[in-house]
């Protein structure tokens, strides 16, 4: 079976987030001064073949730790979207 997952990789809390800061700094000049706590991370979408959803999820989880993120500075979240 085929499953589609989205992995959201974000910086650990406490780390400075230059990208987020840059966006936050730009928004007021565009007229939005009502926005706070902007953080920029990665969004990875992938399609996995596996026997069942649990197996697929387990694999994506391992990919996220080993390849898609560096646990030293990042955390991740996995969304399962639709079954393709």
């Amino acid at each position, binding site marked *: 079976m085929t499953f589609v997952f989205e992995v959201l990789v974000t*910086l650990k809390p*406490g*780390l400075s987030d*230059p990208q987020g800061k840059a966006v936050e*700094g730009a928004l007021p000049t565009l007229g939005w001064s009502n926005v706070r706590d902007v953080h920029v991370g990665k969004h990875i979408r992938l399609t996995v073949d596996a026997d069942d959803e649990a197996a697929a999820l387990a694999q994506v989880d391992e990919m996220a730790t080993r390849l898609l993120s560096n646990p*030293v*500075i990042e955390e991740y979240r996995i969304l399962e979207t639709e079954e393709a």
Partner: protein
Amino acid sequence: MAVVEQPLHRALGLTDDELERIVQTLGREPNRNELAMYGAMWSEHCSYKSSKIHLRTLPTEGPAVLVGPGQDAGAVDVGDGVAVVFKMESHSHPSAIEPFQGAATGVGGIVRDIISMGARPVALLDPLMFGPLTDERNRWLLGGVVAGIGGYGNCIGVPTVGGEIHFAEPHSANPSVNVMCVGIAPADGLMTSASHEAHVGSSMVLYGASTGRDGIGGVSVLASATLEEGAQGSRPSVQIGDPFAGKLLIEASLEMVEGGLLEGLQDLGGAGITCAVSESAARAGMGADLDLDAVPLRERSMEPFEILTSESQERMLAIVAPERLADVRAVCDKWGLASAVIATLVPDGLLTVRHGDDIVARVPAASLADDGPEYDRPLAPDDVAETSEDPAFMPFEGDLHGALVAVLSSPNIASKRWVFEQYDSLVQGQTVASAGSDAAVIRVPGTLKGLALSSDGKGRFGHLDPYLGAAHAVAEAARNVAATGARPLAITNCMNFGNPERPVVMWQFSEAIRGMRDACLAFDTPVTGGNVSFYNESGDSAIWPTPVIGMLGLLEDYRLLVPTGFIRAGLSICILGETFAELGGSEFADVVLGTISGSPPALDMERERTLHDLLHEAASIDLLVSAHDCGDGGLAVTLAEQAVLGGHGFVVAVPGDLPPHVALFSESASRAVVAVAPERLEGLAELAAARGVPFASVGETGGPRVVFDGLFETTVRELRDVYEGAIPRLLGEDV
């Protein structure tokens, strides 16, 4: 990573004796904030407690030296009213767990050291050491570190013009990431404690990034005690670099310096605010009133000790007289940098720290900055060379052509194009020579002067003999600079070693310092600064003892630069210096004979010195068309590189009666291969004779073929494919 049951001071890395010292200084028990401050300031990293007594033996004076060790970076007078500021530092430990950010923040840190001297950063060099590329993790580390150095350096507009990379098993667990930064300032405009006087009542302005909980590694034990369970785990041990903020810091800081707005300037590095405030105050012979509530924070409810020791990146501290405050704030605003007056200089030597209505710490500033402990740690010799076999006497039946291909394709020797093409080497528009030259050469704007820059470490030699390893590193760095026609002026360095509490490591360190000292004395290249990186080991496997030397040389006229490669046909090729049966620690012995043993080549400092003088003199009368120092890989590799770099082959008859493989691959010191127009051959011969440098005319440049007369032949094309293709192939990229 549970907090072990031990007294707080030990958890903070302070010994019982050190605690006793603190109690005596204060006349009372320190509170936890004060303990955190001493713990950070008296750490090996900040206090140099194990290395000081050895570093003190280094020659640091010379006619050209404006600023020696003790400041953020050393400075040398190169004439025309120009001062060159340079310094090297390591960021190996963070890079081992987050290569990109670890290396990036390393660049940011050394750049701020240069800025804090009032100099504009004009060049970066990056000496790196990794484990073998056959290992997936080492490839990941290399890729991340190189991308990180480029990611920061390219983004702040400072060209990365040189560096070096070596690969060796001991670095698999502990890669070494050193970065050297060079800056330029008016000789009379340096921001040194000597040249700038701070006054009572002057403000300390913290500007740049806000202060967060990141980079409080040292005191995180304290933090864990105060944080709910699990928070410890999420506490980041690496920081994220913000090169954009770094670029703004450069421009804003230099605008303040050039505007004469400052009494002092200090970067924030190890031990954060505690270090910057106490050092500045101590240098001014004063104390300071520090108000933590004034520090712009990135996170709510930070504890005093966290604010005091946070090593958040991209921050600087300016000492400003009251009447200049408005101007300084204006410059920060112009560049979009936050700024805040966090402290005031006070006459008594006390650093008083306030938080809310409380005084949370009160200690003598100098006791933090200057009165750190100092240890004469035990030494235990471990002379590898003595006890191992000399490869020069090992049998070799293989074919020489195959051997050259093997050595040339060793990643230690092969082209580092994959790396240096990831660095902007052109920005600022002064780069006359970068990768592919023995030393990088950049112009000093507004003059004809060229700065020749080289960084060299000799890990394998150091492993066999730490004294010779260090001496050879200085010699090779000077030779590289001399090969471009420049005169070696002064060095900075980074000492990469294992755990200093182990007598063997401490012995290696003392031997390396001795070797560096002797070489620097012989070459008149004083040590203007550097950095010590200890604890590069895991389990009991330490890295090879490796001092990396950053050499500054001067070309009076950059147009006299001597290129490395054979850029024309029909030139006479000469070998300067003498080749001996010295394969100990050579690339050939490692790659072809499969042994790292024996003694490194001998080093006769006077012979070496005369070679530098000859190269410099010959270049100054425009005698040389091409010159290349003869080092790693020996004569064969030196000639091969000159052919590949210049695009012209050669026919050479290898002189002497050594066995061919020894003659071709011996790494004897004090040698260079030069090419001259035939009609100038005589002139060079006479000059060499007058200087007493052994001289041999051995062949001619030209054609697509590379011929070692009577031994073997190949083509420039084959050598180029081997030389350029080796590293991409190891990284699994189609070439």
